[in-house]
């Protein structure tokens, strides 16, 4: 029997991601030139040897399904176990509205959770960017006697909002809700290793009480009742992607080689759906500075501080500065784009000028032709 099973929450999409999520869930947001956000949690699990993973989703998950496929990219296409997509099933009320919280999402797939044949369950969010080495907290959890091990960070990582205060023994004594304070405690990355029986008990209780929020209801209650929560501190980069700004900033953070090497270390690769594609070609007049460029692009214009996904065609004379350009976009001759997030399959005819600012990057929705 395998000891660990993974569950990834991909049901929640923050409306502050605006146009970026009109065609997808947050977990399937394209990131850093070739990835989708969910790749981080899937790869963390895979790199720690967890290949039995359920992905909890609720709506607009077509692009997510397309990305996950059979789970091959993460070695999760197993004959026994492997990757399972978990859209709502069972009770009809879960087909309406949004899940009121993580505990409702878990209850919506309770038959799956009950059937998990592992002692410990690793819970992670599908919309964060971090390369967490799960093997260390997994071993720690096995030895410490804790019922829950919270994976935290020692700095105020963008987007996270719960802080745990620890006692002398290192176990959690208190939780600061909606408060981020890396001086007083550690900030939760909302990734947990939890004993299956504890999780099932929490699910049961939340259903009975109709209280479905994970931290504010379930964890708070459980801590009050004397639950033993250990902490593992992840020292590296982490960001939760819940707004257009945080999406833009996290992408731009990857231009910093130190951060990028930490998020994409050779020892723990981030796996993603592989597209068979050709190299990127730089033309005779191309100019490129401080940018990340995926394969299958033809760059004949100028790019600076940009993240360019595959299939881009940047015509001669075009100038892109501080832009994120998703897959399959064409920028015509002498166009100029600054601080623009261009969603997939957009075309800018020659001479188009779009200028936004770092404070308020502009989003051009998928499939736009200008």
């Amino acid at each position, binding site marked *: 029997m395998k000891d660990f099973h993974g569950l990834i929450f991909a049901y929640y999409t923050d409306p502050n991601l605006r146009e970026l999520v009109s065609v997808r869930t947050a977990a399937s947001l394209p990131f*850093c030139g070739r990835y989708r956000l969910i790749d981080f949690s899937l790869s963390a699990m895979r790199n720690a040897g967890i290949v039995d993973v359920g992905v909890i989703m609720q709506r607009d998950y077509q692009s997510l399904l397309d990305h996950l496929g059979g789970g091959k990219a993460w070695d999760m296409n197993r004959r026994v176990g492997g990757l399972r997509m978990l859209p709502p099933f069972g009770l009809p009320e879960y087909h309406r509205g949004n899940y009121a919280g993580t505990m409702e999402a878990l209850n919506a797939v309770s038959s799956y959770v009950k059937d998990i044949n592992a002692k410990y369950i690793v819970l992670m969010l599908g919309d964060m960017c971090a390369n967490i080495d799960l093997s260390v907290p997994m071993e720690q959890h096995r030895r410490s006697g804790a019922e829950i091990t919270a994976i935290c960070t020692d700095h105020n990582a963008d987007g996270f909002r719960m802080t745990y205060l620890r006692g002398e023994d290192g176990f959690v004594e208190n939780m600061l809700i909606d408060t981020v304070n890396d001086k007083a405690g550690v900030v939760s990355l909302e990734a947990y290793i939890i004993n299956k029986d504890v999780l099932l008990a929490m699910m049961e209780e939340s259903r009975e009480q109709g209280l479905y929020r994970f931290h504010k209801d379930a964890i708070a209650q459980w801590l009050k009742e004397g639950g033993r929560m250990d902490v593992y501190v992840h020292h590296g980069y982490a960001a939760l992607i819940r707004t257009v700004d945080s999406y833009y900033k996290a992408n731009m953070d990857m*231009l910093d080689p130190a951060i990028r090497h930490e998020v994409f270390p050779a020892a723990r690769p981030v796996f993603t759906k592989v597209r068979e594609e050709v*190299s990127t070609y730089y033309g005779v007049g191309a100019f490129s500075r401080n940018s990340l460029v995926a*394969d299958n692009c033809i760059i004949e214009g100028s790019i600076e501080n940009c993240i360019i996904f595959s299939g881009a065609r940047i015509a001669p004379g075009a100038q892109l500065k501080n832009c994120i350009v998703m897959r399959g976009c064409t920028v015509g001759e002498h166009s100029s784009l600054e601080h623009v997030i261009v969603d997939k399959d957009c075309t800018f005819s020659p001479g188009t000028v779009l200028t936004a600012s770092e404070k308020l990057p502009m989003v051009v929705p998928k499939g736009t032709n200008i």
Partner: protein
Amino acid sequence: MKKNCIAMLLAGGQGSRLYALTQNVAKPSVPFGGKYRIIDFPLSNCANSGIDTVGVLTQYRPLQLNSYIGSGQPWDLDVNDGGVYILPPYQTSGEKGSWFSGTANAIYQNIGFIENYDPENVLILSGDHIYKMDYADMLREHMEHDAAATISVLQVSMEEATRFGIMNVGEDGYINEFEEKPKQPKSDLASMGIYIFNWKKLREYLIADENDPNSSKDFGKNIIPSMLANGEKLWPYHFQGYWRDVGTITSLWDANMDMLSPTLINLYDPDWPISARSPICPPHQVGTHAEVIHSIVTEGCEIDGHVENSVLSPSVRIDVGAKVLYSVLMPGAVVEPGAVVEYAIIGENTVVHAGAHIGAAPDGSEDWGVATCGPDIEIRAGAKVAAGAMIFTGEEV
């Protein structure tokens, strides 16, 4: 399981004229054109032509090739009723095992494999050519003309014709003569080493050839000439398009440089993808000092120097102040600050330390050539490697 056509890919050659690049790997697994290995071209052509059963005959240094091909998944060749099979030489009961003694012998030794699929036709390919070709079209002509064998031919110049096997064609369009490297060529149709045979016919000829002690067990030298001598119908398939044999350092470098000209061979065509087993690396980065001009660059590269007219494979690193001109850098190669690499091929994971200088621009002299460093070499700081030099793995430079 009956198949109309299966492919047999000859990938056992040592590729001795690539010297340091094939010191430890077989020629078909030499990196090419940034993302690829040479064998990706015939394998992708098979997949794109609807040929889903491919036997890959290996012999020389097959380890890397075996793991590269794996289940065949990158080429969609992981199918239930076919797929890609690695076929090494093997021992049979009561006999000593024997190496493949020629291209025809390699197929002869795998008659059992071929019979499993009971094919009407067998396509014979080699693992050292760069081209895009629809084998289904060739197969159509082969069947239309009821040929015992169809040989793919390419029009070359009369001067070049002296270096190829040349097919002379009669008025009826069938091949009536074959000359290996003729001094006075009668035609300009060169064999590309790509054959489709009627399997029943080929089987007879393979067995007869095996029993001939004077035969060198080669398709070009023995099988084709004896078919012609027996009056079999041999049809030429006229191929038009890009085709290069990359058996030498110069031709390998030339063909890599051709990848910079999409008019010669278009790798961006979504209808004919050339697939490869890709490492999973982040997109490449161009740094704050980088200049990249007329070059191809792929995933995992980190460039902060000057790159011009060059082909970069995955995870190549070019540091600030380094210059790379007219060169081919294989996966994981590193060029440190201030180093210069020009008109050179740098093998996998070779490190050119700071200030070293590899290769030189053509100066018109006869002994000029492309400088080549094999894989896993450390070129020490400040070292100089002359044009045309060949540095083997294990050498100290």
